[in-house]
């Protein structure tokens, strides 16, 4: 059997502020397989973003190790693409230029990167908007571009921190379906974070449930629902059952306060 794509071993994180120390993560152990769509769900403030930022290399773990393909991670890099909850398109660049950003830095030939960018813009359904500036796009469209920008870079892994959290309910389900269809085609390993249980079950191969702060991985729940999926699934029985299981786990967690 091949080694897991991403391994976290005994990862912990403290934030030191003046005289006070906040423990955000405690003893996180996680293994994510190649091509897995992994979703971490947990209550607000449990350290989900902190965990993802450590994997991205944007923050350093206080203890433990993170390995991608067996290599230890210490800094951000193009091998881990990220989509943020906030809109992070570069407002002075067009959609096309935004998607080309990472490739340009890498020194990819202009024709090659234009071709790649066009491909991913099409994949997220934004053909015709190549020359638009971010300020003219809706929130959902901005996140589509952000996904295209991350994927065009050809990352080993895609990290997503509540990317649809700022969108209205209808746009959010459209984006979830879009992500599912993109993932069907690309099969990039994804680590997705949310506090929305429906979203977690709809997307995930495995849902990792986190406890309140200091965050730990409380359980790994396999979502054995066939693909391709879309949001119509959310009213099916198998979906509701898994959702109930996760809900009870999170409720038990809040009840024990």
């Amino acid at each position: 059997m091949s080694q897991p794509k991403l391994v976290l071993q005994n990862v912990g994180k403290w934030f030191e502020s003046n005289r006070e120390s906040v423990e955000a993560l405690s003893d996180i152990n996680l293994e994510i397989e190649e091509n897995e769509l992994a979703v971490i769900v947990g209550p607000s403030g449990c350290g989900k973003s902190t965990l993802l930022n450590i994997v991205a290399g944007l923050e350093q773990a206080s203890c433990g190790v993170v390995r991608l393909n067996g290599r230890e991670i210490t800094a951000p890099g193009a091998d881990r693409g990220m989509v943020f909850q906030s809109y992070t398109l570069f407002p002075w660049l067009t959609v096309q230029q935004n998607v080309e950003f990472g490739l340009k830095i890498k020194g990819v030939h202009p024709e090659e990167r234009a071709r790649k960018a066009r491909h991913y813009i099409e994949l997220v359904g934004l053909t015709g908007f190549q020359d638009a500036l971010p300020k003219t796009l809706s929130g959902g469209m901005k996140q589509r571009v952000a996904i295209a920008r991350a994927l065009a870079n050809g990352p080993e892994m895609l990290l997503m921190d509540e990317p649809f959290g700022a969108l209205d309910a209808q746009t959010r389900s459209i984006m979830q379906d879009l992500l599912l269809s993109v993932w069907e085609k690309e099969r990039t390993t994804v680590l997705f974070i949310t506090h929305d249980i429906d979203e977690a079950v709809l997307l995930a191969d495995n849902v990792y449930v986190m406890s309140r702060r200091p965050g730990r991985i409380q359980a790994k729940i396999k979502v054995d629902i066939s693909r391709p999926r879309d949001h119509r699934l959310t009213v099916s029985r198998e979906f509701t059952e898994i959702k109930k299981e996760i809900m009870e786990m999170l409720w038990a967690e809040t009840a024990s306060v």
Partner: protein
Amino acid sequence: MSVKRTTMSSYFNGYKKLTLFTFLSILIVWCALSYSGAVKEVFLPTPGAVVKDFWQMHQEGILIPYTLASIYRVMVGWSMAVIVAVPIGMLIGTSKTAEALFEPAIDFARYLPVVAMVPLTLLYFGIGDLQKFIIIFLGTFFQLVLMISDVAANVPKDLLRAAATLGSNKWQTYRLVLMPASLPGIMDSLRITVGWAWTYLVVAELVAANSGLGYMILRAQRFLAIDRIFAGLVIIGLLGLITDYFFKWLTNLIVPWSEKVGGQ
């Protein structure tokens, strides 16, 4: 598309009308107060007298030369401030070390009244144009540094983080993200401080000047030539207005992508 264009232009027509309304109102009140004799002519000249004085100044051969001399001083003094303040401000806004090195000193310096430093500038820099530049520099530099550092520090962190996750190194992030992201704020700071530069012009021409609008106003004050004081103020006001519009136009040109810049 055509619908959008008409609404845009009617918006601008409305805007222009309101602006014109304000200026006309001021003029009417001025006329009423001065021509009726409600305010004595030694306090408030009539618009006619001010216009006549413009002609007088032209006859004396000072209208254009004095205006140019002042524009020259403001531009050089303020440009000196910009050239030094922008890089230092960017550094302070992005590096704790630079902040510790520069910010307390600048905070101290910006509270020193520039008027009180005039004697020192005369001692150090003589009575030439350099001394005028220095006064305008002192009046704008310290504020500008702090404004620029604020702009750089307020670039959204996630924008810089996004660049890092796309594979950009520190310098690339600085050059390709931080600098363009700071541009709209920098343009705003420039527009605001160039206005202050005009304020410091009069301070700069307070002593040891023999040309310029500030000098002219101060000399007119000595002779109680109230219409000339007004004429000088009107010129400075108009130049300020033009500079402001120029900067708005330039901002549209340089950062058309900014959320603040209207229209598409």
